[in-house]
């Protein structure tokens, strides 16, 4: 495809931004993104991910740090000189211009003559599978179609970086999946380095090559989806991405790769020290995902009483109250004999494997 000039790298180098009020929006963010990667900026609302996107686009000048696209430091460039394509959450199509004029807008700004502009707009509309809509006004199109137009418009300027701000938030669930596949297809075709801002963890995990998790303006973790999901570096990442059980305990012994933890619930288990080494006697929080707990017949593991069992189609979720009074959720795949347990049944639980329990220093 012609757009394959994409694939420039993007480096966010120690970027810090303060609001005029003095509050920190983002603090010391470092991202090293290779050409052609899809990156998701994941975090709850207010974590600074949109601020970071606007800094990369050039709408906000960061207080400190550098943005480097390819080999160029772009900090001094205004947004209209950065060649960064953006798809806004509400698409921001120009309501008074036809679809093809919308797509050709960036080309007109670059002084491309009218016939080439129209030809290029038509080609892009075919790429996003809307070849017959060229003469319509944006409001005549459905949400999904408007988004395709917004994508075509952003791709028309052959951007070196494509930024998507909560691109699927306004779409209903079925359409969202279609558009996610569509965006991934377009990204493959064009090879453009793409940054997706989202608060939806499933979206981040399914679409991105690497995920950057942000919280309160700080980068919590930057890694592959499986790193982020299976080997979270912070308690925040473990609880924000996927669901998890948080179990308090005390470190009995620890080395760099494994820690023996005495849970308050009443068992000693082996857990993975998630962020460096742990000291003996320190209080920790152990996170175990519901699908990583199993019922055991012997005396290993900790005891609990089943409160409620919910058969959720492919899985059954049991809510169990442990000896220290806290509740944990256990998710079992529904195979053969798996069935809802009676309320009040006494059970014992243990993690499937030591690597699936993550221990974090307890925060006060």
């Amino acid at each position, binding site marked *: 495809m012609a757009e394959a000039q994409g694939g420039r790298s993007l480096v966010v180098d120690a970027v810090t931004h303060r609001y005029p009020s003095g509050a920190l929006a983002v603090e010391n963010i470092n991202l090293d993104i290779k050409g052609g990667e899809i990156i998701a900026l994941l975090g709850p609302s207010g974590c600074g991910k949109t601020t970071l996107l606007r800094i990369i686009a050039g709408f906000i000048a960061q207080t400190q740090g550098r943005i480097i696209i390819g080999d160029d430091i772009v900090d001094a460039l205004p*947004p209209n000189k950065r060649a*960064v394509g*953006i798809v806004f959450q*509400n698409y921001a199509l120009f*309501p008074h211009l036809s679809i093809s004029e919308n797509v050709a807008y*960036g080309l007109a700004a670059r002084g491309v003559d009218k016939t080439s502009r129209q030809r290029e707009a038509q080609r892009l509309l075919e790429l996003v599978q809307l070849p017959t809509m060229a003469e319509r006004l944006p409001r005549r199109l459905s949400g999904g179609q408007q988004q395709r137009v917004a994508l075509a418009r952003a791709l028309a*300027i052959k951007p070196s970086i494509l930024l998507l701000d909560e691109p699927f938030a306004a779409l209903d669930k079925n359409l969202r999946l279609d558009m996610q596949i569509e965006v991934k297809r377009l990204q493959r075709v064009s090879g453009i380095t793409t940054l997706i801002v989202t608060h939806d963890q499933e979206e981040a995990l399914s679409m991105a090559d690497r995920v950057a998790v942000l919280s309160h303006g700080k980068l919590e973790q930057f890694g592959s989806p499986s790193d982020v999901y299976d080997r979270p570096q912070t308690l925040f990442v473990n609880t924000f991405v996927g669901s998890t059980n948080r179990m308090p305990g005390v470190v009995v012994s620890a080395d760099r790769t494994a820690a023996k933890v005495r849970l308050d619930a009443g068992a000693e288990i082996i857990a993975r020290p998630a962020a460096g080494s742990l000291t003996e006697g320190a209080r920790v929080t152990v996170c175990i995902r519901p699908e990583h707990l199993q019922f055991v017949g012997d005396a290993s593991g900790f005891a609990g009483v089943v409160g409620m069992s919910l058969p959720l189609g492919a899985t059954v979720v049991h809510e169990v109250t442990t000896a220290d009074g806290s509740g944990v959720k256990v998710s079992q795949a529904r195979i053969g004999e798996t069935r809802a347990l009676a309320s009040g049944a006494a059970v014992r639980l243990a993690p499937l494997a030591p690597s699936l329990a993550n221990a974090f220093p307890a925060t006060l």
Partner: protein
Amino acid sequence: MGAAPASRDVTSYGMGLAAPLALFFLLFFVAPLLQLLWLSLHNDTAGLHWGLGQYLHFLTDPFSLGVLGSTLLLGAEVTAVCLLLGFPIAWLYQRVGPKLQTIIILIVLLPLLTSVVVRTFAWIVILGRQGIVNATLQSLGIIDTPLKLLYTQFGVVIALAQVQMPLMTLPLITALGRIDPNLDDASCSLGAGSWRTFFRIVLPLSLPGVIAGCTLTYAAAITAFITQSLIGGGQMLFMPMYLYQQASTLQNWPFAAAISIIFLLAVLAVVSVFTTLGRLSRGYGGA
């Protein structure tokens, strides 16, 4: 009205509710207007002979046509000044913080809170031979003799523009406020500079406000009797004063009535041009 309650459309309302206002308008607006029309169709001041003489007189008299022309031109100039000065204020209003917004809206509304007479006299003080403008320019040594600002077309346009400014600025503020701020960013990220963004995106999308503001300013400027007469003085004659002279001083009521009707039609023509433009641009709104 008249539909059975069962089949009643919720969007139709009882017209009876509008009757008091309709009656009021009928008595105090439509009836006098008809009387005016009736009066204008008489050739003599006593109102005994029917005919189109008054209209013929006006339309063949270069002096009368000159007054009409200069009045319509005055309206156009005031509207242009208001648009050129009001648009930046409205644009600024949408881009500053809430505190500055309050200050801007206060400044915009301030003219409406003072009497037209007071404001006009203020302009006489400012523009007079010994006024603030001349005194400042003289003390700075820029001019030797005072400029003639009062009793000129320039003076009238400036004073009227200040007096009518809220009528232009308020619709513009509303229209600009309805434009999605993301459109600015989108245009910018697509490589367009500020001017292209303004002319291709902001201006077209604010057209409904521009047209509303122009219509209001124009209609108000050409009918502004007090400001026109006080700042214009004896040398400048515009339609409202011309009309007043014919009716009150010369007691030529049929001719005054004909002037009124012609003026009314001229204003209606200009306003309907604006409204037609407004209807054409309405396709841009919403979305």
